[in-house]
């Protein structure tokens, strides 16, 4: 969107309060959604819960195609559709709800830098493991991604998505990396996050911010998703303060939700934290 259009949309957004029927769309939870999409979706849900804004989660097989940017999750609020955490944070800010108002300039710079670190390392690593590692791609990613569709569309869409992701990895220079190097990068990223968090309850001490939502989304999903091997989860588990951080946020914001959805937890996701 051009800048003028963005400013216009913000103005419209500011005019109305948050409605009751705001909806978040993501791919099907049981059969279709993959690790990276699930992480992004959980991050957005956590952010909205932290702001105290109600949102209904709706699972659709074609969520990716409905999204304005091609990425999930996206939210449908009033008569606007916004996708991805960054624009959603700006959108809620235009409506008057913000978690990072109390930060000064230097802290805001740090927060943005750490969010980019998570996007750059964790999200890219998740995409790599899902689509560039042949074993995972064949066993998990391709079958799940194309499960709602019948033959031959399922093959075509799965391979198309894989080709797209591999092209992107090539462009940013990750295609030359081996799986061990990717796990090492994840470990370094978690180490950086762990050192930044230290013994504080949240990354910026008193109040949770969008960075906490993003980190929780990714780490929780990594810890509770079953892949072909558990190495990724083990890398995260070795940092105890990150584990307790995830527990804390889960307890604070998701306790009631977990109790309701225990019965609906899928084979793919292990439910709550071990």
């Amino acid at each position, binding site marked *: 969107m051009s800048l003028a259009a963005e400013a216009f949309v913000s103005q419209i957004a500011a005019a109305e309060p948050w409605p009751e029927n705001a909806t978040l769309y993501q791919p099907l939870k049981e059969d279709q959604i993959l690790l990276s999409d699930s992480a992004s979706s959980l991050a957005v849900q956590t952010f909205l819960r932290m702001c105290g804004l109600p949102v209904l989660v709706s699972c659709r097989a074609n969520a990716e195609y409905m999204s304005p940017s091609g990425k999930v999750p996206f939210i449908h609020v009033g008569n606007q559709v916004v996708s991805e955490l960054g624009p959603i944070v700006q959108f809620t800010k235009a409506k008057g709800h913000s978690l990072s108002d109390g930060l000064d300039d230097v802290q805001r710079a740090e927060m*943005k830098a750490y969010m*980019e670190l998570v996007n750059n390392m964790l999200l890219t690593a998740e995409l790599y493991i899902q689509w560039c590692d042949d074993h995972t791609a064949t066993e998990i990613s391709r079958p799940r991604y194309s499960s709602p569709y019948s033959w031959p569309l399922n093959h075509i869409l799965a391979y198309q998505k894989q080709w797209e992701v591999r092209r992107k990895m090539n*462009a940013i220079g990750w295609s030359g990396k081996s799986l061990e190097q990717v796990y090492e990068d994840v470990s370094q990223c978690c180490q950086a996050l762990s050192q930044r968090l230290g013994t504080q309850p949240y990354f910026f001490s008193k109040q949770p911010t969008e960075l906490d939502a993003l980190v929780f989304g990714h780490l929780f999903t990594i810890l509770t998703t079953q892949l072909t091997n558990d190495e990724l989860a083990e890398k995260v588990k070795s940092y105890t303060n990150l584990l307790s951080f995830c527990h804390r946020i889960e307890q604070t914001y998701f306790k009631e939700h977990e109790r309701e959805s225990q019965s609906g937890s899928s084979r793919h996701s292990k439910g709550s934290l071990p």
Partner: protein
Amino acid sequence: MAEPVELFCWGGGWDLPSVHTDSLVVLAYVKFSGAKLAVKSIDWTWRTITASVPQLHYEGTTVTEPTQILNFLRKQRFNADFELTAKQGADTMAYIALLEEKLRPTLLHTFWVDAENYANLTRPWFTSHSPFPLNFFVPGRQASLALSRILLTKAESPLLNITEVEGKIYSEAKECLNLLSHRLGNFHFFFGDTPTSLDAFVFGHIAPLFKAPLPSGQLQKHLNQLDNLCQFCNAILKNYFTDPPAEKRMDCSPTANHDPVDANLQKLTQLVNKESNLIEKMDDNLRSSPQHRPHRHETKPLALAGERISTPP
């Protein structure tokens, strides 16, 4: 080390030791950490198309990519990050990720995709620094790599069109520069008084933008308004990249060993720079201010009319 370690980089130009961002990052880190390397430029060799620059050769092994090279140098005990705390180390990783995500696509666009800059500055330079017949291929290949990187990482998938992405990446880059400026504040370097790997990365990204004579450079204009980043670049160039005989008064520029920089002289130079920047800025403001010169409206600089983003806070 028995054999000398060799580093292959793109050559220098525009007052910089190298015009290539990644090469600059490694060169700056080498100066900061005091490593002894033989720096070889790949200009006018076949490496312009075969090698992925920068490249470090040591006893038969090859290391590429700035982060890998910096890791290698650290293992050889040339460590500029020695005094950082764990949290500062984590901050370094985060800021480097910020640079990669927000600033690099726009730098690639400014130098390789923007038609005016590419045709008038980048392509001639790289063509003149590549051997025949590679000079026909090298710039074009780099440009297409840059374009594909921008489109694949930043463009929304059905709209793989560069014009729609341009506005977004430039505003993100300006925000990134503002964030870096806020973080640097009034300090000489990002973590106190000694430069670290983060300073090397920031320098590598900002210096080409700062020094290159770009015909159309809206990002460059934005950078010039951020005084502390400009002084940061100038300070590093003066202190670490000028040869001692060339500078009569500045006998304090450390070359390969850790000579202490003459702090007073450095401060004086920075104050003078700051003063002259301020005076220039005031002069610009006065010239372009509409209320003071209403009858000179038609001579208002065109750049201001084209500015979509207001000056940073």
